[in-house]
């Protein structure tokens, strides 16, 4: 398995996640797209660590960072959806856009 194959997998996951983040109206589904994009980042960072600089732990730290971002994104996302639903009974991005008015 070459570095390029792992990075192509990462790019595919990132692109599929981007499609979900761009198209989905439900905020929860939008968050699923973001999770897939971060999954791609994790595969890419781990592959770069393994194939380019396995002696240094910096690539592993990047994976830890991405995993933490996933956890934070999900927790804050659900809290925002909860607050939004309490305030306006809205769970769709198109309806949430009215909040800026």
């Amino acid at each position: 398995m070459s570095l390029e194959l792992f990075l192509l997998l990462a790019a595919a996951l990132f692109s599929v996640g981007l499609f979900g983040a761009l198209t989905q109206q439900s905020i929860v589904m939008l968050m699923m797209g973001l999770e897939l994009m971060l999954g791609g980042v994790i595969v890419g960072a781990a592959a770069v660590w393994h194939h380019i600089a396995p002696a240094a732990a910096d690539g592993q730290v990047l994976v830890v960072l991405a995993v933490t971002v996933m956890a934070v994104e999900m927790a804050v996302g659900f809290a925002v959806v909860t607050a939004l639903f309490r305030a306006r009974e809205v769970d769709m991005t198109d309806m949430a856009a009215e909040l800026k008015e």
Partner: protein
Amino acid sequence: MLDDVIFWALALLAVAAGVMVFRFDSMARATYALLTSLLCVGGEVLLLGLDYLGVVIVLMMTIEMAIMAVFMVMYMMNPAGLMPMTMVHNKKGAAVICAAVFAVLAAGILLAPWPSRRGRASADPTRDLGRSLMGPQMLTMMTLGVALFATIVVTVVLATRRGRYDRFGDDLKARTADDPVRGGVGR
């Protein structure tokens, strides 16, 4: 040879499950498809020799998707997919953008002169990670810790039903909250 087979199996399953997340009508199935995709990501990380991080990803994603399934049932209007409906906008435009992003990324990946491998992984990469986080990457670890703590505070504040203005009103000098049930000593 075995590693190649495992890589291709996990990679194809990860991408296929990722695509199915946005094709299933049932929100529960979409959650399990995302779980499958992210478990495959954990498997790929294990394949790269990062045992600790791979297991962390597998455990974390399992729990995270279980929580996500609960939230989907709470908020989605059609969690079981019994009445198929589309909740998407600008599907064609997004597909073009995503195909272009993948093409640009793939071109960069295939055309970039990647540096050759420098050094060898130690026998225990987990120990290297721990020593790095407790040494030269201490600032990263501290930042992550503060971010996680801030996340706990922010999520509680956002999700709580009664906020500061609900309890104390507009008067910033108010000493007692207007709670429906009084608490504390002498109630």
